[in-house]
């Protein structure tokens, strides 16, 4: 578990450092994820070693959004008089985006014959 945490934190650290040094618009952890993917592809045994800890963290991914979510409640007043308009925009655009993304995937998968196994 500690070994896996070291690998995860090292990837994140390298990602954060890279993002800052190169002035990339992508956040450090996302670059860290790409680095980790590269490590696992280069050395597949790492996937076996890291799996229990990584899957333990991912199984409770929802928990990690709770502190930020509580912060939102305090900031709801910053929405001000435009709260209703912004809420409508968030709800409708999210529904449309999920529908458009899933429909585009299914359509192009059918056109290119990229069926699942």
């Amino acid at each position: 578990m500690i070994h896996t945490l070291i690998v995860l934190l090292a990837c994140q650290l390298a990602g954060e450092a890279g993002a800052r040094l190169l002035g990339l618009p992508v956040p450090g952890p996302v670059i860290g994820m790409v680095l980790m993917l590269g490590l696992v592809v280069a050395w597949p045994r790492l996937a076996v070693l890291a799996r229990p800890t990584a899957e333990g963290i991912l199984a409770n991914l929802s928990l990690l959004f709770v502190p930020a979510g509580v912060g939102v409640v305090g900031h709801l007043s910053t929405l001000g008089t435009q709260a209703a308009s912004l809420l409508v925009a968030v709800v409708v655009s999210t529904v449309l985006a999920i529908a458009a993304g899933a429909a585009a995937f299914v359509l192009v998968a059918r056109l290119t014959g990229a069926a699942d196994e």
Partner: protein
Amino acid sequence: MSELAAFWSYLSEGPLLWLGLTLAAYVAGDACFRWSGRRPWVNTVLIAVVILAAILWATETPYGIYFEGAQFVHFLLGPATVSLALPLFDTLGRLRRAALPVLAALAAGSLTAAVSAVAIAAALGVGPVELASLAPKSATAPVAIGIAERVGGAPTLTAVLVILTGIVGAVVATPLLNAMGIRDWRARGLAVGIASHGIGTARAFQVDATAGAFAGLGMALNAIATAFVAPMVLWLFL
């Protein structure tokens, strides 16, 4: 009474109480989710947030004090994002075969999220700073905040809109995609990750492992795509 008050201030000013309550509220939310028969609108994050917000309000505790305990949970978001490499690795072969559909879904989902959000808000008379804060809301929080700062938005407002977007996506995805008759777990997960980042991805993992892996991919791809899409959409509308 003053002894009780002193005892309370001792407890409430340390991180232990708030860390414990964060975990307890999450377990309560998860129990509600299970009792409901895993219904999507009984959202674990939403229930935990409501419970904790009510406790903070009732005890008049400022968010800063709460966060001193909750930061240990919040910190794990980084390592968790890096961990998404593993489910991605498991789906790499299927991903290679689906490269074109993935790119199509990214273009459609990312553009639809930003264009429709800004168009609707602009039509309802929302101001330019608020529009700039809204445009990147489908990207994961640190990316969205960074983009909002660059395009003239308000970072705190963006943080609020990002979390709201995540919760909306997590709640509507299953009924919406069922109603559309889309059964491909790759399409379902990817679309949710693109539109509603990590909160949608967490929800996708609750439903199906393939959906979760593709949601993680969608979140990562849209973090990159939004950096280009959001300024473009604002340029169209401002």
